[in-house]
């Protein structure tokens, strides 16, 4: 009971989910060796560009880079790298969670700073038995981060405000609000012009771990928090029904809607989780060495997190490598002064890596899509009857 002679076939080009932006933020997977090849090529390329810049400025490229690697190999530096990477990792995972659902949380920076400030103030104000004290501080940080990001989530769900705009604005507001809160809560820090929150008592401090043998300093105890967040991220996204809904929404919103996902609710929840993770960014530092939030608390981790999430394709393992790489470059650039090389060369390298990674992923993705479609049609044509040229 058909009318025509030949059935119409629409060309099956994946048009919707398969956009450059989607590939960029890793909602589309790259498999196996390809996933590894792309970033390695990109780092190699970045190394070449940096070498070129070094040569142009009259420095020996190999020696400079070797000096960085050598410096990074020292136990003391390795601890520094891991400590910095913990914060980078948490920040990047917070960004990654949003990315996986099409949300661009630029506000991680404001979220973690505000969260760290409030957590430090609460932690300094109370004294509790050890595990409870730590748990309370972390809980406050998570709640404040989540609430701050949640504002952007509610604005988007209710009023359609782009989360890009609202989180940027919330960053600025967080800076002002943080400064005001700090002056209201702060006590002078002895022996400096700095002011900070009342230091957190011993019961709220997390002891370091002697992870690297021979190092005089210790890895932040809450380095383990970053590891837990990574594992939790993987479980949440890949193993739970909630995570499936979240990924579906990121891959194709219309399909998610048709499948029964309440996208607005999803936006708010995703922003809350992302913000909660952002709240953790300052914790390793706060509970591991500063014990107080002052004017010198490091800013900018939120923006670094975006770059690292891109390098790591929003994948917990990939981001771990990205965070370590970034941290390695940041920490070991200090040695370049001794080599009479401007440490800013590292900033060039970081920039080139991000650009090169984006381009490399794109190339690899194009190759993979074509290869997979060829493979499917080949395997099908091998099994006698084929279904047409569509795939």
């Amino acid at each position, binding site marked *: *009971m058909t009318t025509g002679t030949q059935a119409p076939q629409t*060309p*099956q080009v*994946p048009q919707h989910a398969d956009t450059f932006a989607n590939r960029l933020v890793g909602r589309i997977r790259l498999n196996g060796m390809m996933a590894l090849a792309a970033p390695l090529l990109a780092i190699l390329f970045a190394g070449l560009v940096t070498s070129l810049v070094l040569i142009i400025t009259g420095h020996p490229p190999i020696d400079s880079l070797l000096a960085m690697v050598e410096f990074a190999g020292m136990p003391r530096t390795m601890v520094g790298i891991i400590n910095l990477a913990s914060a980078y990792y948490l920040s990047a995972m917070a960004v990654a969670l949003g990315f996986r659902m099409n949300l661009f949380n630029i506000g991680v920076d404001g979220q973690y700073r505000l969260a760290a400030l409030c957590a430090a103030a609460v932690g300094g104000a109370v004294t509790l038995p050890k595990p409870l004290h730590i748990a309370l501080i972390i809980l406050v940080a998570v709640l404040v981060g989540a609430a701050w990001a949640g504002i952007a989530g509610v604005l988007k769900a209710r009023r359609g405000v782009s989360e890009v705009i609202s989180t940027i604005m919330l960053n600025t507001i967080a800076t002002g609000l943080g400064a005001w809160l700090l002056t209201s809560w702060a006590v002078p820090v002895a022996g400096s012009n700095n002011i900070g929150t009342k230091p957190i008592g011993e019961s709220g401090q997390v002891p370091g771990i002697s992870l690297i043998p021979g190092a005089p300093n210790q890895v932040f105890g809450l380095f383990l928090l970053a590891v837990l967040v990574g594992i939790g991220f993987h479980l949440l996204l890949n193993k739970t*029904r909630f995570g499936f809904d979240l990924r*579906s929404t990121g891959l194709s919103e*219309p*399909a998610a809607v048709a499948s*029964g996902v309440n996208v607005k609710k999803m936006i708010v929840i995703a922003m809350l989780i992302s913000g909660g993770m952002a709240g953790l960014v300052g914790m390793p530092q706060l509970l591991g060495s500063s014990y107080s939030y002052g004017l010198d608390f490091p800013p900018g981790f939120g923006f670094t997190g975006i770059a690292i999430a891109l390098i790591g394709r929003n994948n917990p393992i990939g981001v771990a490598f990205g965070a370590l790489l970034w941290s390695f470059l940041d920490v070991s650039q200090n040695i370049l002064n001794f080599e009479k090389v401007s440490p800013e060369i590292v900033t060039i390298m970081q920039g080139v890596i991000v650009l090169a990674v984006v381009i490399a992923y794109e190339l690899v993705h194009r190759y993979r899509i074509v290869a997979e479609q060829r493979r499917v049609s080949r395997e099908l044509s091998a099994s006698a009857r084929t*279904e047409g040229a569509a795939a």
Partner: protein
Amino acid sequence: MDGITKRFPGVVANRDIHLSVSKGQIHAIVGENGAGKSTLMKILYGMQRPDEGEIRIDGTPVSFSTPGDAIAAGIGMVHQHFMLADNLTVLENVVLGSEPRRAGLALDFAAARKKIKGISAAYGLDVDPDVLVEEIGVGQRQRVEILKVLYRGARILILDEPTAVLVPHEVDELFENLHGLVREGITIIFISHHLDEVLKVADAITVIRRGTTVASVDPASVTARQLAELMVGSELPSPETRESTVTDVVALEVSGLTMAAEGGRLLLEDVAFTIHKGEVLGIAGVEGNGQAELVEAVMGIRAATGAITLAGTDITAWSTLRRREAGIGYIPEDRQRHGLLLEAPLWENRILGHNSGGIWIDRKGARADTERIVAQYDVRTPGIDVDAAALSGGNQQKLIVGREMSGDPVLLIAAHPTRGVDVGAQAAIWDHLRDARAAGLAVLLISADLDELIGLSDSLKVLLRGRIVADVDPANVTPEQLGSAMTGAGEEA
């Protein structure tokens, strides 16, 4: 303008299309949705390039690689959905992209205003260049769109479904404008599937079916019925002697379903029907008459007023998720956008829409059930870890059908279940639908394929402009009769 010949090899949207439009005429192109009208127009307007064939204007072969080339050759297109900036005036919208310059720098609004008024007067468009677009109505916006292309010197106008957004009196106004344009020597290509309108306005008609031109007819010597016959093809479905499986148990009851678009135009108006267990209710209608809205209202994706009762329970206020959990299966119209995660493996696609239960995904169960669907529904794939994007359309659709049939649904909403699917897969999907119906499934079937509707349905309703206008007995109706009812051409079956 002399003749257009175009050929497309293989399985693409257009093949071997011949179309010749005479100067100073309104030439209508009619065909079902998906017949290839839009693709053809995109080629004419330079948005896509033909693989084969050539376009000649006034006998001279032309080749367009961008819409800019087409505009330069005097072809202008008015899209179905207006492309106007609401917060700019008519004048600013018209000149946007081809602003007249004075001394190389300043915008010469005075000259533009004069030119617009001139065009408006010459063709009787009655457009005021200095009002904001957001302040004018739909009919006038359309005239602004027409003016926009005339301003750029178009002599051939392509109008894509121009009446779809208009109310009847605006349609009449538009037709008067079109006649005015033609009198001034403009050629108009008018795309539509409203046959009564086409017959009223066109000087010549070309019918497209399944990607190719099947006939060129003179509107004076053809009836809407004959046109419908040409549009849908005249072969009768193979008569099916089959037992009715309709029971007395009501599965779905819809009453007073009404949905309004922004601006108050009713997309659905007081739609009511009942589907029993074991019954297939077909909804016939030319696309854009409320089918998509009806489906989304029953699925709870778009808000509508009225009452929806599923197996005795009022589900009007339920979310899409809850409706799905209550046993509504949904085969969406656009499988790639609404039915699949193209960049996810098949087994993950099995979970889509069936993601209820505990906290954790039942990975093992999903994989096993995907294997079952692949085997049972003959999905041609090397494995279940392949991305859905790598499958052909027919196989994607078989996967969706298999997925939506699993878990013993109470009601299946099937929107164009076999569109764009090859013949073999089509027959297989039909068989599965029949088997499920025999097992007591209630099916709401939306289709543009009249043979499919007549062949599968136990009862048929015709949807026209958001209202159910006719009940048809599929046992004794021909596609032509149904086609006439669908286009509002009068005589009901």
